[in-house]
């Protein structure tokens, strides 16, 4: 994302300028922020909640909360990571509501040993996804990531899908950097192992 050069050597992120205008009552400035980040918030919310209606609600509630709390935005983090933090909390709350009686948090199911050491030795072809049509592939990818515990899924989505840095992911989720790294590794290895069922070399013609 481009930074705007201001006086001297100090750089101000364009989002901060929009936040400042929104704080002063300029709703159009906030509209720009909504248009810039609504797709990402929807994607993150859908990944965490696994429910379309919840994801739609999260988009609305996350932006409204952000708007109401603009005064609390310090500017020492990016607006986007601050917004994502709100969206993740809203998403986890909705996931919890849908799964009444079951605690859902960023710490859930992370103690499992599954995926800590790879078991499936099967190699994949150079373009394994070419074995499938686009919509079949999307179904496989959705189904595979849905199977991860929420704590792993969230870290993987923020870090690898949305491209936040490890430090930003840690800040967003209120986790330590080592905790993010450990979850990311296990999330990646679990996904890899699960995808091997579909992508292993020569799967379709049955030759090992």
């Amino acid at each position, binding site marked *: 994302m481009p930074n705007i050069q201001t006086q001297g050597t100090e750089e101000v992120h364009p989002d901060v300028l929009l936040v400042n205008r929104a704080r002063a009552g300029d709703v159009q400035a906030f509209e720009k922020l909504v248009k810039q980040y*609504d797709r990402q918030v929807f994607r993150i919310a859908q990944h965490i909640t696994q429910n379309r209606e919840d994801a*739609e609600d999260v988009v609305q509630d996350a932006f409204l909360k952000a708007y109401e709390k603009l005064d609390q935005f310090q500017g020492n983090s990016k607006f986007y990571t601050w917004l994502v933090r709100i969206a993740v909390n809203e998403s986890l709350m909705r996931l919890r509501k849908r799964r009444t009686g079951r605690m859902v948090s960023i710490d859930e199911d992370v103690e499992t040993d599954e995926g800590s050491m790879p078991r499936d030795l*099967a190699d994949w072809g150079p373009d*394994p996804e070419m074995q499938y049509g686009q919509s079949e*592939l999307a179904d496989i990818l959705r189904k595979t990531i849905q199977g991860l515990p929420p704590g792993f899924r969230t870290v*993987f989505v923020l870090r690898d899908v949305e491209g936040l840095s490890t430090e930003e992911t840690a800040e967003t989720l209120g986790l330590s950097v080592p905790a993010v790294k450990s979850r990311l*590794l296990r999330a*990646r290895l679990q996904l890899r192992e699960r995808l091997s069922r579909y992508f292993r070399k020569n799967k379709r013609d049955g030759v090992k």
Partner: protein
Amino acid sequence: MTCSEFIAQLDDLLENRVSATLRAELDEHLRTCEHCVITMNTTRKTIEIYRSHELYELPNDLRDRLQKAILAKCKKC
């Protein structure tokens, strides 16, 4: 280097965040361990595939509706 030690460095390796010395040790392990070569390549591919496929697109009509709802509520704040 054992496979466990290699796996512990996998994320940093995939992101090119390892020192030259460690890199040489990891490469040495890869020369003799097909298991870790496969794990590294398929993990890299896993990340690439998820990065390059949009799984939850926000349709334009829904997007418009959400934007309007958000801004209408903001104006009432």
